[in-house]
């Protein structure tokens, strides 16, 4: 019985981790940017969805859409205000652009976090779930929202797969992650591809954020831990490898759930961290990463 419960509970949280990490790894794969404002964008989406419902009194669906829209806007803002100026800067040497993007997005994330805390306080906010109630799966009472979360995550990841592998735009994105110079030689504007990727990223992070708001609730304190968990999942899976991130998300999600059920919720994150250190030592490029 416990095993089944872990299986069900772990699936929803893992699917959510997977969705959150996919956008993060996509950005890295295509433009080599590690976006440390990731957690802030997710929280912004969730808080926007919450505010739409409880402050503006919109219905749940409009609220959720509003949240995703805010994430999209913040994502574009991150690209145009922070990342692009650093990438195009002539005063920063190329080999140091990475650390500048890291520092810049980190500061940007703190700014978003502080603005959220200023306007909406630090209190935890729970977005009203789209589906309510519980169902009984072989004797385990499971909130319908868990199943809904898992389904939406799988659906969105499936759509992303179709977009990347089956459409012209998606193929351009894929090509840019393999060989940016080759793509420009084929007459595609690299900047436009980046804009598309940041758009996809914004939507993914937005959906993940809103779902997280319904599933666990968020506060401005969740920003750091969310960024750290996406970062560790992505590194565990191999930077830039989307399928690696998916596997890693499920490994981390289940490891956390098992620890929380079998040992104690207080130790929830420790085994995943130990696993990460272990993988770093024996396989530094992550599960499916290329060097």
């Amino acid at each position: 019985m416990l095993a089944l419960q872990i299986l069900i509970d772990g699936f929803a949280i893992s699917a959510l981790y997977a969705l959150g990490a996919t956008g993060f790894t996509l950005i890295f794969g295509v433009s080599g940017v590690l976006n440390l404002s990731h957690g802030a964008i997710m929280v912004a989406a969730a808080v926007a969805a919450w505010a739409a419902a409880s402050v503006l009194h919109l219905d749940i669906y409009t609220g959720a859409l509003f949240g995703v829209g805010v994430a999209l806007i913040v994502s574009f803002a991150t690209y145009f205000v922070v990342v692009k100026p650093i990438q195009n800067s002539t005063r920063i040497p190329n080999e140091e652009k990475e650390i500048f993007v890291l520092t810049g997005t980190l500061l940007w994330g703190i700014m978003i976090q502080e603005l959220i805390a200023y306007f909406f306080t630090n209190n935890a906010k729970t977005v009203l779930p789209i589906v309510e109630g519980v169902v009984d799966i072989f004797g385990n009472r499971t909130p319908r929202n868990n199943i809904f979360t898992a389904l939406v995550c799988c659906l969105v990841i499936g759509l992303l797969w179709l977009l990347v592998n089956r459409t012209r735009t998606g193929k351009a994105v894929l090509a840019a992650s393999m060989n940016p110079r080759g793509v420009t030689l084929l007459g595609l504007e690299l900047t436009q591809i980046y804009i598309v990727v940041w758009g996809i990223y914004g939507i993914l992070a937005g959906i993940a954020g809103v779902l997280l708001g319904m599933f666990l609730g968020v506060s401005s304190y969740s920003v750091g831990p969310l960024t750290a968990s996406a970062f560790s999942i992505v590194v565990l899976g191999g930077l830039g490898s989307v399928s690696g991130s998916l596997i890693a998300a499920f490994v981390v999600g289940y490891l956390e759930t098992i620890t929380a059920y079998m040992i104690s919720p207080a130790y929830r994150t420790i085994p995943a961290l130990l696993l990460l250190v272990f993988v770093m030592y024996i396989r530094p490029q992550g599960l499916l990463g290329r060097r």
Partner: protein
Amino acid sequence: MANFFSSRLFFISLVCVVVAATLPLYVSGYILGLLTVAFYFGVFAMAWDLLFGFAGEVNFGPTFLIGTGAYTAGILNNQYGWSVYVCILLGALASVVAGFVLALPALRVRGPYFGLTTLVAVLMLQNFVVVFADLTGGEIGLTIPDVITINAGVNYWIALGFMTVSAAILYGLSQSPVGLVLQASGQDPVQAGALGFNIVKHKLAAFIVSAFFSGLSGALLVFYFGTASVGTVVDVAVGVNVIVSAVLGGRRTVLGAALGAIFLIVAGEFLRPTGELATFIVSAVALLVVLFFPGGFLGAALSREARS
């Protein structure tokens, strides 16, 4: 080295230190307390700059080193009541061991992978503190029975003296042949190795020196505060402040990192009337500096002097 003593930078630093040393004679204890913390933070930032600016290692976990030093010193004093100076020394030594542990992955993985490993180290330390609450005081914090002194002026002088000595040693090291080899191995490890320099040895040395100063400063800081807590010496946010200080002041300048730290702490305090927006404003200023003056305060000043 000789022309350093006749350079303008040396005189400006000397004047700053002399002026700073006379502050306790005419400013309030409140400002002294603020600057005392800022000076310890300055050492954190300088030690970080040695690793990043020179060895080229992006260490996201400066608080792993700081926290190890701080908590070791605090626990020894709290549990066994050993003398303050023994505790501080042992704290610094524990931090050196931590630096050695942190250096092991650094010699295997690079860039973001190393960054994550260091971040994980901080999270592990944080979990350790919370889980072993009997020993460490957990989330509430560890009370430290002894203090070095309760005189605000003396505390200030200790901090200033410690920062000055650390700055002299770290700056001297960065300008020495060892520093140059370190810089070369940070920028192009393959070529530096091909020139016959032992990169592993130099990087390990950089980690140990950085860890020693971080741990020493962390231990001194907890004896100043009279308490060690996750929020003051281990939290990732503290590490972020250290990194921001170093980038703000000018990476690869060592002295700039201390300037950045003092600016960050003092600005944060002066913006206190703006309430919760203080952190927002400081981060926004730091972001503007990163975007428009990537060399940082000291970097911008030095390049202007070099041009004129």
